[in-house]
């Protein structure tokens, strides 16, 4: 069994301070869409400057380093209890090094634990055993501003004229973007889960945010809807930071789960432009970050 605490610490540092290239490229494309001299363009230019500075200085892109959400895909033979301990040790160190803000607060006493640990759900860690001999750990840092504007709809929704079909999914998703305005740090990325129960729906809506910005949905209907949602949302005129402008969404990712006959949930997780998610793999003794 390897001790991978140092590698996980590096994964946390990378995630907090170095925006993934696919996200940065999407913001670069968005800058070109906005009129020169506009507040929208100014906001995106500042964002890109900040991304560069954070990378150079190894400082957090955003001070809200969010909930650390880990997905661990482990080959047979690894101890999940041991991996959990190493993740927790890495998170404590990352907090000391100011890669993470102490973000774990007891909901009843209001006390901040100071080290990003607390209970069995902070940080959030999911385990899944996989074939082969590669250990993969994915990490997303999702801040509170964007988490707060997530929404879950139970269809049919009469007010939005949304029935139990993909047209209904489009309607409620657009409503979620409208309701969010600039408060989730637009331009955002939507993770949408159709179906499931209230719990599994929200989980799946976040899992789908681990996809790459430019990948296509394997289901052509959902792929078309993802593109349509971005196109429609960008007509809303909310723009970067809610300043007005053409870039309200950078992307949308849709997944689906089986549901009960009685339920039809659409769970929408909103991710801010500071779309921090990174991956490390360990194969034999070789560690790779991406």
């Amino acid at each position: 069994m390897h001790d991978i605490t140092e590698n996980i610490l590096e994964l946390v540092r990378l995630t907090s301070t170095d925006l993934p290239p696919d996200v940065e490229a999407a913001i670069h494309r968005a800058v070109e869409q906005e009129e020169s001299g506009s507040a929208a363009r100014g906001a995106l230019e500042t964002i890109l400057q900040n991304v560069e500075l954070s990378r150079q200085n190894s400082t957090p892109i955003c001070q809200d380093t969010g909930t650390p959400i880990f997905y661990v895909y482990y080959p047979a033979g690894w101890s999940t209890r041991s991996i959990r301990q190493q993740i927790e040790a890495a998170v404590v160190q990352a907090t000391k090094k100011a890669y993470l803000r102490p973000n774990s607060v007891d909901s009843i006493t209001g006390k901040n634990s100071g080290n990003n640990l607390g209970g069995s759900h902070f940080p959030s860690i999911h385990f899944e055993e996989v074939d082969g001999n590669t250990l993969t750990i994915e990490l997303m840092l999702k801040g509170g501003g964007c988490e707060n504007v997530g929404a879950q709809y139970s269809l049919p929704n009469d007010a939005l004229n949304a029935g139990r079909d993909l047209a209904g999914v489009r309607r409620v998703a657009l409503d979620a973007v409208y309701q969010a305005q600039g408060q989730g740090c637009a331009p955002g990325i939507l993770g949408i889960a159709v179906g499931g129960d209230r719990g599994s729906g929200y989980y799946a809506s976040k899992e789908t945010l681990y996809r790459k910005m430019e990948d296509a949905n394997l289901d052509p209907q959902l792929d078309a809807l993802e593109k349509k949602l971005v196109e429609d949302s960008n007509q809303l005129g909310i723009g970067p930071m809610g300043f007005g402008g053409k870039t309200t969404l950078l992307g949308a990712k849709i997944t689906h789960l089986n549901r009960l006959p009685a339920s039809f949930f659409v769970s929408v997780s909103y991710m801010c432009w500071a779309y921090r998610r990174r991956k490390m793999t360990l194969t034999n003794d070789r560690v790779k970050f991406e």
Partner: protein
Amino acid sequence: MRSLNMPMTDEAIRSLKVGDPVLLNGIMITGRDAAHKWMVDTFIKQTRHAQDDDLQVYAAIKPLLAGSVIYHCGPVVAGLDTKDYKFVAAGPTTSIREEPYQGMVMQHFNIKGVIGKGGMGPKTLAACQEVPGVYLHAIGGAASLIAQTVVKVLGVYKLDFGVPEAMWVTEVKDFPAVVTMDSHGGSLHASVEAHSKAVLQELLARA
């Protein structure tokens, strides 16, 4: 771009309009969810008795807030062990959560500027007209960049709220923001919301 020195005069505030970019200089304090609730419960509505260091903190922050700015920010701070504090990352947090409190807090402490992101609602806009005050929008997530304008951390109150929720007293130089709510009733957020609502209705009317 216009430089504003804190504390600010009523004339300076009234001359600001929605859309004006500004650079702030001087002393400002951070305060967010816990701080706003604490100020309102303990000193404004007085539904909670002052305890521990509440009165000393009140006496200390009152002159600092008068005519100055409160910043909705939960920073990443280095030097917690040595108390040689330095802001590492310090972008704005979402302001709308303070909407139930902000107007009262502005009135009580004579706060003339609120910095945050995402904008605020009608109660805060009304307070901006009365105090007078402005809402200043900083770029959400631009945390490393903004931290560089915090030249000095002068002290901290209510650290027992936790690092993000504590009230950090800072000296800033050329802190960048844009006026998005002014003292004349103008709000960029209200107009963007109204426009996007109309577009949403059109989009929903299509198949």
